């Protein structure tokens, strides 16, 4: 590096290792960056540090036992993962879920979206240098986690939905509390925006950085807010509706430029949409049962188990051995989790265990496109880019 050659300083490319233990990589992501000065020539992501073999493990578990594994995929929006899994299994089994359950699932999934985006905004802003936003976001996130705790006893790994229904019904007081939260939440979103929307540092670090065009984003298989930030209005909730999404009014927010700022804008608009979906769900919540009537696959209600021999037998068999039969066939089912399209692909051979369970995780796809976003930009923008695609390595590595 110190060689002088005709009066010019000769330079060499520098290889820099970032992660896997680095707070700004949002988990155990390792990047090897080839640098020319501060410009990134090549970016190579390494993943797999959190690989637990969930897909392999699932082949040795029955359908009921897999549910808690899905909590640990995207552990900051576990409810959405649970629902994605249940929707897929119900499609395979051909179970019709009661309407009340559909609404409660939609409502809790949107709560998860809010809490996920809050954590995303908090850490993303912290990465770029805005400390205050972090504290504000965690204040609201805490409220949602408290509501989850009141609902099912767990704050993070909820395992609240069941195949064909839910663990328990919601209490009216709980709904009141949630309604009060949605009353004040839009004001909170405005607060976050006043903190960063006109902040010159924020704008300089996000506008025009990490640009990906709509064609490229589609070709790389991106989904969720990242794809919508590039102006593609693709949302599984609209194109392949599940739950109660076709019974409430809402819009798909999109960006234009496909840069970090537009992805930020999309998520901020999703806060408001989710908030409105939750309110509509509470308003329209129908009465009725919460579990589907499919005794071979779904757990019967506890009061029936204690009073009825047949239900007791079903309960005993399901708990001790799991579902004994499943329809033979293959099914792909996608749901829109906060990070993008979460797909479950099942191959079922007729036994009570999946022959193959494939998880199409959005984070895995988004990390694979990270070099596309980073190359040609500066080192500092790598951190902003990682934040903007909102990855969780638990889901990426499975």
């Amino acid at each position, binding site marked *: 590096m110190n060689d002088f050659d005709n009066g010019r300083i000769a330079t060499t490319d520098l290889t820099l290792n970032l992660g896997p233990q680095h707070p700004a990589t949002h988990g155990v992501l390792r990047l090897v960056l080839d640098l020319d000065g501060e410009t990134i020539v090549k970016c190579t992501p390494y993943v797999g540090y959190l690989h637990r073999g969930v897909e392999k493990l699932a082949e040795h578990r029955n359908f009921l036992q897999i549910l808690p594994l899905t909590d640990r995929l995207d552990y900051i929006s576990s409810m959405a993962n649970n629902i994605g899994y249940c929707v897929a299994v119900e499609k395979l089994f*051909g179970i019709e879920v009661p309407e009340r359950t559909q609404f409660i699932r939609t409502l809790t999934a949107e709560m998860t979206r809010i809490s996920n985006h809050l954590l995303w905004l908090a850490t993303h802003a912290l990465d770029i240098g805005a400390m205050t936003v972090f504290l504000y976001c965690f204040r609201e996130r805490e409220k949602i986690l408290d509501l989850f705790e009141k609902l099912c006893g767990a704050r993070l790994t909820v395992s609240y939905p069941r195949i064909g229904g839910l663990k328990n019904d919601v209490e009216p007081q709980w709904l009141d509390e949630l309604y009060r939260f949605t009353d004040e939440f839009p004001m909170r979103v405005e607060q976050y925006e006043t903190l960063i929307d006109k902040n010159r540092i924020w704008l300089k670090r996000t506008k025009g950085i990490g640009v990906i065009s709509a064609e490229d984003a589609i070709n790389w298989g991106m989904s969720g807010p990242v794809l919508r930030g590039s102006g593609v209005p693709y949302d599984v909730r609209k194109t392949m509706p599940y739950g109660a999404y076709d019974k409430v009014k809402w819009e798909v927010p999109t960006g234009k430029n496909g840069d970090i700022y537009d992805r930020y804008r999309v998520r901020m608009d999703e806060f408001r949409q989710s908030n409105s979906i939750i309110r509509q769900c509470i308003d329209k919540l129908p009465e009725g049962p919460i579990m589907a009537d499919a005794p071979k696959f779904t757990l019967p209600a506890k009061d029936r188990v204690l009073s009825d021999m047949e239900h007791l037998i079903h309960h005993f068999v399901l708990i001790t051995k799991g579902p004994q039969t499943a329809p033979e066939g293959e099914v792909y089912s996608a749901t829109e989790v906060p990070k993008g399209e979460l797909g479950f692909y099942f191959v079922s051979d007729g036994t009570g265990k999946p*022959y193959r369970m494939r998880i199409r995780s959005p984070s895995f796809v988004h990390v694979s496109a990270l070099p596309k976003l980073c190359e040609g930009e500066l080192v500092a923008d790598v951190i902003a880019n990682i934040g903007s695609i909102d990855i969780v390595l638990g889901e990426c590595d499975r």
Partner: protein
Amino acid sequence: MEPLEIAGRLKDKFPFEVLEVKSFRDQVFVSVKREKILEICRYLYEEPDLCMNFLSDLCGVDYPERKHRFEVVYNLYSLKYNHRVLLKAQVPQDDPSINSVVAVWNGANWHEREACDMYGIVFNGHPDLRRILMPDDWDGFPQRKDYPLRGKEGAEYRGFEETKELHAHDKEWNIV
């Protein structure tokens, strides 16, 4: 377009490649031979009224008792027309290789690496075929059906070659 219609189009265009068309829960699965997979994918991608521009997923499946042991499943979706079809290419065990489709969808890159990592399927023409989730020096392909869920006693992975001596005392200290 209805998924069955797409399967029909595919059958007309590649009569010798399509082996079987199956339908389950409104989804259509088309089994194809592996030789012309790239041409088939390019056709589905480029044909204006099919426009399968979104590769949702790509994964391997292992069927040890079948003649063609492996299957590579291409989950194709059209953002323009909102239709989906699943292609299944048959790959034999004695030559587990198939052409890569990274040239059509960049998103296939890591999915193919994962299928290679987990099942040992080689994707010809892949730009960077390395292990992805498992360590580089791992033996075997974990998601094959004949690979055990748990290894034999003492046979589990003890880290990279460089760190092995650090584990030399594990047995006497009873931390296995």
